[in-house]
């Protein structure tokens, strides 16, 4: 589940961000220990991930009420993750030697195909 060549706490942060954006965590995050048990990692590493997310303002820890999602930041977070995904995608295509025009045509082609299949589904 985790790669060894990227800091584990970074991978855990990324995972939490994804889960927040997907609404798997609405308000409250699991405790450090709960998440550590679920992911089978060291609680210290989860704690570090939480600290990092808190530093970025994505989550807030209050004594007594646990760790909660900062809903203000959620929209920005989604945008950030989407942009990251897109940029990774573009990077992957560029590494294969595709130019900007080719990428644009490719995207339109895939988009149209996608829309067609949506229409087909609603017709049935």
């Amino acid at each position, binding site marked *: 589940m985790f790669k060894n060549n990227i800091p584990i706490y970074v991978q855990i942060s990324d995972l939490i961000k994804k889960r927040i954006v997907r609404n798997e965590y609405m308000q409250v995050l699991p405790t450090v*220990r709960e998440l550590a048990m679920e992911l089978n990692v060291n609680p210290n590493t989860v704690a570090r991930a939480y600290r990092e997310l808190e530093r970025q303002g994505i989550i807030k820890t209050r004594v007594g009420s646990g760790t909660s999602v900062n809903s203000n930041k959620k929209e920005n977070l989604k945008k950030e993750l989407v942009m990251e995904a897109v940029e990774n995608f573009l990077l992957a295509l560029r590494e294969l030697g595709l130019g900007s025009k080719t990428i644009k045509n490719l995207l339109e082609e895939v988009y149209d195909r996608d829309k067609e299949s949506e229409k087909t589904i609603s017709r049935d």
Partner: protein
Amino acid sequence: MIEIKNLRKQFPGTDAIDGVTLNIPDGVVVGLAGPNGSGKTTLLKLIFGFLRPSYGKVLVDGEKPGFWTKSIVAYTPEIDTLYHWMGVREIIDWYASFFEDWNNTKEKALIKILNIEEWKKVGELSKGFRTRLKLLLSLSRDAKIFLLDEPLMGIDPSSREKIEKAILGSISGKEIVIFSTHIVKEVEKIFDKVIFLKKGEIAIYDDADTLREKYGKGIEEIFKEVFND
């Protein structure tokens, strides 16, 4: 907390530990890696008190290893050290009776997760299951320091996750766990810090994630790099 200063251990013909200075704070899981003969077991034995320094010192919570430290340090040896004629249930009860920090809740949980066959005799267990039993005897304690020498010995790859779970589930976060192993790749994600021991000296002692950031590689990869010259 473990403080080691200028530690040297000499055996006839070899310097097993040759100048180690190390401070391990509370609340960390430390991976101890190194090739055969690099001094991993010797270091663990020196911390526990099975061996005494030739030079330098080892302090466990400010005390030299001895009678007092045995009640706060749990040592899981690599070799076979249990009485084969004892029943599994028998040896657990017997061993537990010596320790005030024995945690029955942990014991029950560990029996389950490690699939301990309580009805057998220790001698009837396979190597992997003897390792599990040894782990149970250490991890069921609320010890302050856990010294695990090759806790994956004889454990098949599909069960390694279980061992990780068992270890992580047994600690509250305030303890020191030193995990000595050859098999680094599968378990490195649980290490807070890593010690690379090369010929009795410390080649690297750093945070695991810091090393990953620095090298852009996994701990095992870095390990191979350090030891292949």
